[in-house]
């Protein structure tokens, strides 16, 4: 049997504790042990970005990290972006711009874009394209996603 241990992680402000194999990836921990299935597996080798979550506010690929590596870090998943029943302005912009079709890449896109806008509140189109270049989408052609992120940034700028 492979070695197991108890792993405790801070996810979306909650503490999640589970006994699992030490080789459990953060992705599988979130999906199978924390019950957070919004984070998706598209390739499990670090290329597609479907598994993107935030670790202390920076976007990371949950398929490339072992849960046991995360330690004290704060994990945020798509479920943690807004309180239940609500959506952030970024999520709403995605909807307005039809920035999702099948929705499989969407949580990863949101987590990457959310982190981008925190670091760079006023990105230009090239910066948005560059930031999202590690998130594959097979449905939308990216255009509406980029428009949604730019629109959200602009609206935030107008509000502040």
């Amino acid at each position, binding site marked *: *049997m*492979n070695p197991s241990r108890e792993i405790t992680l801070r996810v979306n402000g909650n503490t999640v504790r589970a006994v699992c*194999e030490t*080789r*459990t990836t953060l992705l599988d921990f979130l*999906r199978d042990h924390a019950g*957070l*299935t*919004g*984070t*998706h*597996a*598209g*390739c*499990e*080798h670090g*290329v*597609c970005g*479907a598994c993107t979550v935030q670790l202390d506010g920076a976007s990371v690929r949950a398929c490339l990290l072992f849960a046991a590596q995360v330690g004290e870090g704060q994990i945020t*998943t*798509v*479920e943690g*972006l*807004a309180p239940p029943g609500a*959506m952030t302005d970024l*999520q709403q912009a*995605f*909807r*307005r711009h*039809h920035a*999702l*079709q*099948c*929705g*499989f*890449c*969407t*949580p990863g896109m*949101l987590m990457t874009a959310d982190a981008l806008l925190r670091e760079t509140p006023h990105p230009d189109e090239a910066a*948005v*394209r*560059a930031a*999202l*270049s*590690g*998130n*594959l*989408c*097979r*449905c*939308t*052609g*990216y*255009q*509406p*996603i*980029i428009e949604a992120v730019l629109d959200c940034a602009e609206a935030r700028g107008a509000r502040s």
Partner: protein
Amino acid sequence: MNAPDRAGLGNAFEAAATGTLSGAPIERVEDERFLTGAGRFTDDVRFEGMGHAAILRSTHAHARIRRIDCTAARALPGVMLVATAADIAQANKPIPIRLAPLPGLDRFLQPTIAADEVRYVGEPVAIVVASSRYVAEDALDLIEVDYDEGPAVASITQSASNATLVHAAVGTNVATQYPVERGDVDRAFAGAPYTRRERFRCHRHTGAPMETRGLVAEWNGSLMRVWGATKVPFFNRGLLASFFDLPETAVDMIETDIGGGFGIRGEFYPEDFLVPWASMQLGRPVKWIEDRREHLMAANHARETECELEIAMNLDGTIRGLRGRVMADLGAYVRTGGGVAVSRLAQYLPGPYRISDFGCEVMALVTNKTPVGTMRGPGRYEANYFRERLLDLACGDLGLDPVAVREMNLIARHEMPWPIGRLVPTEGEGAYDVGDFHSGLHKALSAIGYDRLPRDGALIDGWLHGVGVACFVESSGGGKSENARIVARTDGSFDIYSGVSTMGQGHETVFAQIAGDELGAPISAFRVHHGSTAHVDYGWGTFHSRAIVVGGSAVKLAAAQMREQLDALAAAGHRGPPAEDIEVKLRYDTKGPTYSYGTHVAHVAVDPETARVKVLAYVALEDVGRVMNPLLAHGQAVGGAVQGIGATFLDELRYDENAQLLSGSYADYLMATSTEAPAVQAVLLEESPSPSNPLGAKGAGEGGIVATAGALANAVGNALAAWRLPLTSLPLSLDNLARALREARSAAAVPGQDH
């Protein structure tokens, strides 16, 4: 499913209202669940005590299996089941063809699991079920298979020689071969002042949806429930039931959210038998989620074709005739839709042009590669590229303007319906129903600002500019019928049940729009259910851009009947929602396919030193008859175009000469990312509503992709006009283009040859 908003159910129960929902850019009711992580994709379906399956796949392209030893795998703690063909009674039962049963194909069907011979890298050899996917994969490593490797067929040319046979017992690699013709093609070529013959190649690639395939099966002793195969659930139900000698009613296929389909997902694959079988053996739910490597080697591939095509023209550019030979690589077995692309390819070679005399020899061959199926725009993408590229090459030879030659040859509006003859042996005569192909061409050119674009190799800041045009026509609305059921609930809401399935297109929203217009109720009054076998008596599923054309028409007619019933209630003095549920069930039969058409125009710049291509502007224009929701229709068009643009430059499933797959991960299988994807301008016209259905709709899901390779190859060819590159082979990858340029340069350096 969208939750109905109990307030504001509109005036459905008062008076007939005329609708304004269809045609409006209504935001999708589906979105919220996806944006908040609440979607329910296949891997999100989970049960207590569920087993996790993994499939052992052949590592060889062609080998005999001498022996399989599962002892160590079976002994691993946590392993529940290890099975090979020897353990499975139905192992030799082949998976039948669903679409395009061309003559001869049924000799090459795929068994549910390889018994004594493997024929492609990725073919299932054993199935393991364990307490977790981790343990299941550990167990795969412990299975020992003793292979006796044989010679493999890695290419169409090699296959055609029949020197090595993929299926020795059949005695040939030619799975099907037939001629199609309309008019008299020899007469058209006889005495033609100009002809040109080229040999084209379209590369192997695939839909590669972001969610890989996956299934959850649960056998409870009398009912088999299966989640995850979303495309043609009723067909798959019948097939699965037949494998187990069960009545169809003992099988339920249940739709989940799906991370993209693109033709690949939801056909009946070996795993669609193996996973339910394992669940039946174990008496517990079993989940199988494909990993990306498996997906690239085991899910359907598509597109790989060679085509010799010859055009006969008058010197003014009038096309006299077109003839050719198509050879498709089907991979090792004929799968459910293996014959679709090659037969459509031949059908769409003449395209939107007035080509009365056309002939084609169609051949499909087996090789030791992954079997093929349909991919978005099957046969159209390929056919369009071959023909449109040949047209531009001919224009180059004759010194004619490519736009003028297209204008001259496009079928005119007043010539509709235009008979296309019988170009698919499994179908009857067909005809383009209605369309203004010229208007499509003109509007696409003006959308991109064609007259002002630098082209013909104009040099700007070191980049050579070129513009390419490609016109297309394509069919949609297959599958002869669709069912719809609407129930008016006592709380004033409605449930709509449809036999189509959805893979992200937004059908829940569009069906609510259609029914809302008939019933005078807002979107929020509807819950839309689709894709599961429990909802309607039968459903034909989603393919051939049929969901709106056929499924939407059924919803419209059912809603109209519901309207009549509610009107009758109102006339009898009843006010408000009905006192008990009212149900309307309806089956809509199509009057045959409908044809959407359009033009793509690409403006590119090419760096002649590195062969790098920048797509500066791209217009994808399509007349879809009727735009039900412009937000969604544009999404389909742009997404399809980017998928096609990416495929034309990047996507490629490569094999070595031993038929070993070289592109089994996303590190090798490249797809367009946000930095490569150009801005695409989608233009959707509604100039020619389809007369064949009550919505006037034509398919909108595939037109975005079909003309991409043609337009791009012509644009790159135009930018590099000085070298007269044939560009008869895809992909237009950096390597391939750089090589073509190098070769052209060294040829030009030979004295006495010009460029």
